[in-house]
């Protein structure tokens, strides 16, 4: 807390510098006369920004981040005229449903909302997110990890949201179970499969991991790791759907094989039974995202000190890669009556050193900013739950291997539901997930065509 005042002054300077750089950049761009990217929308002048930030305004911010009032308080300290009303409209899908309903109704939508990376196209297809470039957002590109900027950018260079936190995928494993059964940390998927069989044969009550048959997000992260690009958006209404590509089939037959052999679990995750299983040592690893370590230390207290972190097993040990699961952004809705104040808040919340630091210590978000990832107090954190291992450093390194090309469809809810009913069901029932991939592809292609998209790869 004592750092507040110096940070406050520093962040104002930083912000003004950034805004100044933005204006300078805009002036230079105008001078150079036509660049390679599509022309940016006109900048809002610094004078207008200052005026808006001094006008008493109320902003409504929908977020499910717990206890975010402390970060909001920092913003309100800096801009006392702006009041931010934080509302929890549900976590994830329920909030998106409400947001879509409010947008369709024309009233009731907030000024800002927390939107996960994977849902951004679902809202840009409705033309509901405000392009933040006029408010200086494109000057922030260098602050963020590269692939996150790709996720929030539009096809014409628009910046639709500011990254808040990320979830690069890694593997948390039980060192004690590995030691007891003489299992080395698997570096490739082949080693992982062999270890799964060995472990389950030696200890029939224990599985190497659980692949939740309802967790489409984990599936997408794993095919992302395999270099897959299931959805390609070109322009507003053209989409290529290839969810049953060769890479996806490789992943499906791998997990289908392990599930069929009965050497991995396929139970629903984040349920009471699953928490109990983690606490009792039923699963020796958890393939999860960078928010996993903090989450696990809160939910599996009985196993403290026994877990370690490592990168995911690789398809090609020479080219380490990973995918992302989760992570959110702050987006401004186009329907807002206070675009300047909302845009400034979104940028402040996710770049201010004070707020971003709090995100890691209070909400345990995994940072999206390069500065915080490199910060010694963050990277050097060595929690006792992980036997003193620097887990943040491990996940930070993993974050660099996430491919920046992955895209999401503009109808993710439908894609997720269809996945659960085809591939997920095949994994749970131990039938063929590769055939299920074909069904998923058909369902999505039919849906997209029905909705007016021009679909390739149908």
């Amino acid at each position, binding site marked *: 807390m004592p750092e507040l005042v110096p940070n406050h002054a520093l962040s104002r300077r930083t912000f003004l510098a950034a805004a100044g750089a933005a204006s300078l950049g805009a002036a230079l761009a105008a001078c150079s006369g036509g660049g390679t990217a599509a022309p940016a929308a006109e900048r809002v002048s610094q004078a207008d920004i200052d005026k808006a930030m001094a006008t008493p305004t109320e902003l409504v911010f929908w977020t499910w981040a717990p206890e975010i009032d402390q970060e909001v308080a920092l913003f309100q300290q800096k801009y006392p005229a702006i009041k931010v009303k934080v509302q929890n409209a549900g976590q994830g899908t329920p909030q998106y449903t409400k947001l879509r309903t409010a947008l369709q109704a024309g009233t009731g939508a907030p000024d800002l909302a927390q939107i996960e990376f994977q849902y951004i196209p679902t809202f840009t297809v409705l033309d509901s997110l405000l392009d933040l470039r006029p408010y200086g957002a494109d000057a922030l590109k260098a602050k963020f990890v590269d692939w996150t900027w790709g996720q929030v950018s539009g096809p014409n260079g628009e910046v639709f949201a500011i990254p808040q936190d990320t979830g690069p995928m890694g593997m948390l494993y039980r060192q004690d179970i590995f030691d007891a059964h003489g299992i080395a940390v698997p570096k490739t998927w082949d080693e992982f499969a062999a270890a799964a069989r060995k472990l389950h044969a030696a200890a029939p009550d224990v599985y190497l991991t659980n692949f939740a048959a309802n967790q489409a997000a984990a599936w997408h992260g794993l095919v992302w790791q395999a270099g897959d690009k299931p959805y390609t958006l070109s322009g507003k209404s053209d989409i290529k759907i290839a969810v049953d590509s060769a890479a996806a089939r490789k992943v499906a037959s791998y997990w289908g094989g392990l599930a069929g052999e009965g050497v991995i679990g396929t139970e*629903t995750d984040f349920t*009471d039974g699953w928490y109990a299983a983690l606490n009792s040592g039923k699963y020796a690893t958890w393939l999860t995202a960078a928010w996993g370590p903090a989450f696990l230390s809160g939910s599996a207290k009985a196993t403290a000190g026994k877990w370690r972190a490592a990168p995911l097993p690789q398809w090609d040990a020479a080219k380490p890669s990973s995918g992302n699961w989760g992570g959110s952004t702050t987006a401004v809705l186009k329907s807002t009556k206070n675009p300047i104040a909302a845009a400034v808040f979104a940028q402040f919340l996710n770049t201010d050193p004070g707020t971003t630091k709090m995100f890691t210590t209070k909400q345990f978000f995994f940072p999206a900013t390069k500065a915080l990832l490199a910060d010694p107090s963050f990277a050097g954190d060595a929690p006792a739950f992980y036997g003193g291992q620097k887990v943040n450093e491990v996940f930070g390194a993993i974050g660099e291997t996430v491919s920046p090309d992955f895209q999401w469809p503009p109808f993710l809810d439908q894609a997720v539901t269809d996945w*659960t009913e085809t591939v997920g069901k095949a994994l749970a029932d131990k039938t063929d997930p590769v055939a299920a991939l074909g069904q998923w592809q058909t369902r999505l292609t039919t849906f997209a065509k029905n909705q007016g998209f021009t679909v390739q790869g149908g």
Partner: protein
Amino acid sequence: MKPRSAGPWFVAPFLILFALFFVTPLGYAAYLSFFQHKLIGGTVFVGLDNYAKAVADPQFLRGVLRVATFFLIQVPVMLFLALLFALALDSGLMWLSRVVRLGVFVPYAVPSVVATLMWGYLYGQDYGPFAQLSRTFGLPVPKFLSESWMLGSLANVVTWEFVGYNMIILYAALRTIPHELYEAAEVDGAGAWRTAWSIKLPALRPALVLTLLFSVIGSFQLFNEPKLLQTIAPNVIDSSYTANLYAYSLAFTGQQVNYAATVSFLLGAVIVVISYTILITANRRRQP
């Protein structure tokens, strides 16, 4: 003339609310069902295309078939139990009849969300009481949430919730039977069972038809229980498990509000057809 003009005024408040909260939404849904809103291309008039699509939609048909099966299994069991309890209470031969009456009715007072969550826990494979009991006795754990048992598990929850409600309706109907009939029966030498069969059951026919109609509507609209159990068994209860659940998923997951309206109307049509069939059959029997 004057007394007649007061009639409409008394009915007016109800009619206004009825028009506002019942007729208008229905009309709007009907209007919506003739259009289609696409993510690319906006709203387009499609006439009866949505209806043609819904009638051939395997997901919708499966959902309707499933609730029809549910109706055929669950409702007779539930009404039989309700009848049994009502007759037992009315016979005056039951101990602590007031306590029993309250006890059977209490599940109806429990909100269905709470009831389903509670039963979901009871059914749990790992930590539910049935699972733990089976393990203590070395028996295989009953798979309440598996595909083959799921409909039965749902039927159990719904029966538990509504037996009391139906029992009260039947019991109230029994209480209106004039006592002279009982006295006449006693004079004729009829015992409790014969009285029940010859006097009470025929008198209960209107009440039974009423509870049957309510049950038709309730079973075909089955939504709460599957939706809540979907969180713990997402691979068994899919988005079109029942027709109503399908309409909900279409509207809120698939953003296909128009098609959802169509499915709702078709479901409503199915319910109307079945209800009228029951009513006509029940009334026909009255004329020997």
